[in-house]
């Protein structure tokens, strides 16, 4: 009984619902979708390539380490070399002696400011990268 009634209802709804049409999207729907796909493809074409690749950095690192070891090993670099170099001059400098008027609070404030600026650089960099979707 219940099943028959449901079947009748099914027929009734099929007839009446089928009569109404599906919703109509905008007339330029397909064109808009295609322009979105095109934009996507253009974005994909701009692939960011670093100037020096990871392999390049690895090679440079190896070279630096290799040269350093070679110089130490061959005796070209010796402790005495630093002793007589002009670098010794810098140890005699006392540039901070003239800055006694700067209080600790000012130093802390300045350090905090520098940290905030560094944080902002990373935040802004990420924001712009996301905005322009550089992949």
């Amino acid at each position, binding site marked *: 009984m219940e099943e028959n009634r449901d079947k009748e209802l099914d027929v009734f709804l099929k007839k009446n619902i089928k009569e109404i049409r599906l919703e109509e999207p905008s007339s330029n*729907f*397909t064109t808009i979708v295609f322009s979105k796909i095109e934009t996507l493809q253009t974005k994909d074409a701009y692939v960011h390539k670093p100037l020096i690749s990871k392999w390049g950095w690895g090679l440079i690192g190896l070279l630096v380490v290799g040269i350093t070891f070679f110089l130490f090993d061959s005796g070209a670099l010796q402790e005495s070399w630093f002793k007589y170099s002009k670098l010794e001059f810098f140890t005699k400098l006392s540039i901070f002696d003239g800055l006694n008027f700067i209080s600790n609070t000012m130093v802390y404030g300045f350090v905090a400011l520098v940290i905030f600026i560094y944080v902002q650089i990373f935040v802004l960099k990420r924001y712009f990268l996301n905005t322009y979707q550089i992949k």
Partner: protein
Amino acid sequence: MSLDQDQHYIDKVLNGNVGSFAVLIDRYKHMVYTLAMKILNTKEEAEEVSQDVFVKVYQMLPSFKGDSKFSTWLYRIAYNRSLDYLKKRGRSLRTSSIDADKDYYLDSMDNILDQMQREEHNVIIKNALGELSEVDTVIITLHYFEELSLKEISKVVGLKVNAVKVRLFRSRKQLAQILQHKLEPEIIEGYGRK
């Protein structure tokens, strides 16, 4: 639309003929847009989501394995994207509290709907559908417009086949109640004339 016909155009798109995607868009845009409208209820949002669905489908086309019909796969993406959009906007799905156990008079309703102007008839049916919950409206739409099987509908809405069957049965009765309520003045008037 047959599976082979869709696959023909899918293969063409995958082989670099992007223009063939237009055939698939034109074939399914009405249904995708209708599903989005049933969930989001505003033309602008439904338009935006439907366009994004086709862009997403274009990107994901290489991963379409053909395990189900292209249309089922597409409708599932449309359904999920619409729900995601709703969630992002902080909105939730409606629940319908219509009593499905009351009696209804199919013959009287059928006669009155038959006598109505097409425009008026469509408004009544559309409004009645709008009173169901979004998920039930989607199930009804897929069942009556697309004539999808219970299994296919279950794939689209991510529910078990039995759950879809129960929801369909209850939604039909709720729709009958809503229509009965909307057509009551005409039904009474009809009896008065007799």
